[in-house]
């Protein structure tokens, strides 16, 4: 009995240490399979959309130096243009964190960068140009999520009707196609229990390995995301074509298990990090609500709206969210307001806003360091949805957060620097690849 208790205590201590060594992360939104940066990030990679009239007008991967004390701190130290505008959107590391995969929602190109040989200067290693053919018609590679030995990629659309019906897709880390998993629909639920509707739409995907589940969300298809924003808002038929589902999958078998009804285009998904936390959040762009997806005491999964984000009647358009490492707070950006909000989510059933700050005329992405002390923001949502004229801010802004206030450390104007529309950020560090 004593040996068993001692073993148990040791297991708990070991689990805690394993957590420390293996599961801490630089930013809090990455795949749990990846090696992590402990402490200070050295570089911020910004996947940037080309912009007409700005620089070479091409999509590019921009590297910003964020090493404190560096002579080039807060400066762009490298930029690699891929030539042409592909609707650069999101990017993600492989599970060994040696490569960064970055996608184009319009041309469906996927650019694979070597970020380990010289983290200050990512090198384009390979370009995948056969995504649509490989996958059997999926369009718009969006989220790049690391699994051991391969990438799980969400798509946004399809080549049949350019609508929102789409798939999850797997590629090996070598860039070879592995499998397509079409989203469940009302006509073909693929074994999933459907709460109300299964629209077959996709957007983000995130996994909770401990429970062998992953969640995917739903946005809209190519015909909408490539349309001018103002034109789309006036198009009643277009406005019907937005996702209203979050799907729960068996992570190991890639089989959909349940489709929750989450109206209003649920976008980013973030699982809580705690050892026993069986819940995730998502926010809905059109209805401006924070949703909780959780497993209850009986082992049943359910989704419920738990908070408003801003004033939903004004459609502030919540976009990116970032959960803290201790699961106590969450940054939520609203694109139309250019505002970030901090929510206390220590009670996930009753989130409360505790802080807000206007960052610019428009903002989209937010990335925070593991200790929460540094928070970065960028601006672009989609080339045809970004604001126009003087409201079309395009920047990377870096802040420190002391628990009370965001203090700006530097700002890079991506238009003045001839770069383009700043979008997805990922952290890099040479310490990942050395002893």
């Amino acid at each position, binding site marked *: 009995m004593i*040996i*068993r208790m*001692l*073993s*148990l205590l*040791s*297991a708990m*201590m*070991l*689990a805690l*240490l*394993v957590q*420390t*060594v*293996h599961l801490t992360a630089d930013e809090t939104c990455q795949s*749990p*399979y990846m*090696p992590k940066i*402990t*402490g*200070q990030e050295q570089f911020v990679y910004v996947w940037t959309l080309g912009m007409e009239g700005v620089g070479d007008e091409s999509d590019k991967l921009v590297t910003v130096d964020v090493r404190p004390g560096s002579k080039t701190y807060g400066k762009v130290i490298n930029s690699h243009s891929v030539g042409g505008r592909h609707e650069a959107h999101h990017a993600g590391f492989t*599970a*060994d964190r*040696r490569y960064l995969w970055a996608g184009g929602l319009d041309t469906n190109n996927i650019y694979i960068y070597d970020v380990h040989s010289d983290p200050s200067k990512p090198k384009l290693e390979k370009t995948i140009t056969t995504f649509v053919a490989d996958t059997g018609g999926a369009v718009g590679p969006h989220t790049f999520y690391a*699994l*051991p*030995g*391969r990438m799980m990629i969400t798509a946004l659309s399809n080549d049949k009707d350019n609508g929102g019906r789409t798939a999850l897709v*797997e590629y*090996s*880390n*070598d860039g*070879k196609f*592995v*499998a397509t998993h079409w989203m469940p629909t009302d006509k073909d639920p693929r074994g999933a229990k459907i709460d109300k509707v299964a629209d077959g739409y996709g957007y983000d995907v995130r996994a909770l*390995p*401990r*429970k*062998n*589940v992953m969640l995917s969300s739903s946005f809209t298809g190519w015909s909408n995301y490539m349309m001018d924003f103002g034109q789309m808002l006036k198009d009643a038929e277009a406005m019907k074509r937005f996702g209203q589902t979050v799907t729960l999958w*068996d992570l*190991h*078998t*890639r*089989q959909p298990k349940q489709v929750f009804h989450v109206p209003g285009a649920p976008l980013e998904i973030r699982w809580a990090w705690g*050892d*026993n936390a069986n819940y995730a959040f998502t926010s809905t762009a059109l209805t401006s609500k924070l949703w909780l997806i959780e497993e209850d005491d009986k082992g049943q999964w359910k989704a419920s709206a738990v908070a408003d984000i801003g004033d939903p009647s004004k459609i502030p358009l919540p976009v990116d969210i970032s959960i803290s490492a201790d699961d106590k707070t969450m940054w939520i950006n609203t694109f139309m307001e250019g505002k970030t909000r901090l929510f206390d989510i220590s009670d996930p059933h009753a989130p409360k806003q505790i802080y807000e700050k206007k960052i610019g005329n428009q903002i989209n992405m937010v990335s925070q360091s593991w200790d929460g002390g540094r928070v970065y923001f960028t601006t672009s949502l989609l080339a045809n949805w970004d604001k126009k004229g003087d409201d079309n801010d395009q920047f990377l802004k870096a802040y420190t957060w002391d628990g009370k206030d965001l203090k700006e450390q530097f700002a890079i104007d991506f238009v003045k620097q001839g770069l383009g529309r700043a979008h997805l950020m990922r952290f890099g560090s040479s*310490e990942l*690849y*050395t*002893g």
Partner: protein
Amino acid sequence: MTNYARSTSLTAMVAIAAIAVIFVLAYRSWGDLVPGQGERAATPLEAAGQPGAPERVDRLSALFPRTQTHDFVAPIPGSYKLPVIKLAGDGKLTDHTGRATTLHEEYEGNISLLSFIYTSCRDAAGCPLATGLLFDIFHVSNRSRQLAANTKLVTVSFDPVRDDPQVMATYGQSALEDEDRETKMAWRFLTASSRADLEPILSSYGQTISIATDADTLKHVLRMYLIDRQGRIRNVYGLGFLDPRLLLADIETLLIEEAQNKGS
């Protein structure tokens, strides 16, 4: 590396070393922590061999309990597909007796589970965890004649400097000299003669090794690979998915697939 990160790393290393001795007991005890179940009855594994235990178990994954770190119902073998990821790479190696071999020779005619380790690994959540899991699978394999006859474990060291054939023989001794080994799945312990022989293997499997500042620790991302009889990688496992139930369910899924292909 910042001072905070450095002190955190040192503290973590000392603590891991201190409790590594009783890790195996901790791994066994983990199944007691499933919420709501309190003290559980003996698993089929523990009960196996006892009077009244079944002679043959069809789903070997059912022998292992659901645990807090793998808190889910294991998939039913054959109820899902394992797509081909890529061809499994080849390479020149040496077995524990010093005999030259290759990976493809080792895979020949078997469904294989490949793991990379180094024997002086002190990370209890790394190579020892992986090897402990493989021992669990090894020991139950004689509960299924089909599994034992058709599956092979292949463990390769990525430390050719320290892990020569004799070291590998010592590392695998309890399996190599298991009194029931003739009825269990084969288990091969291999090493490379040189870095030059090892590098193409590591590259092929996407295994990156670097030497830590202490010069003894080899940094790597823990991985296992399921390889079918045609020499194709069908799954890749990492930390967080090293659950014997999943590995066994996948092996059985491949066996079911083979049977279905023969019948069609």
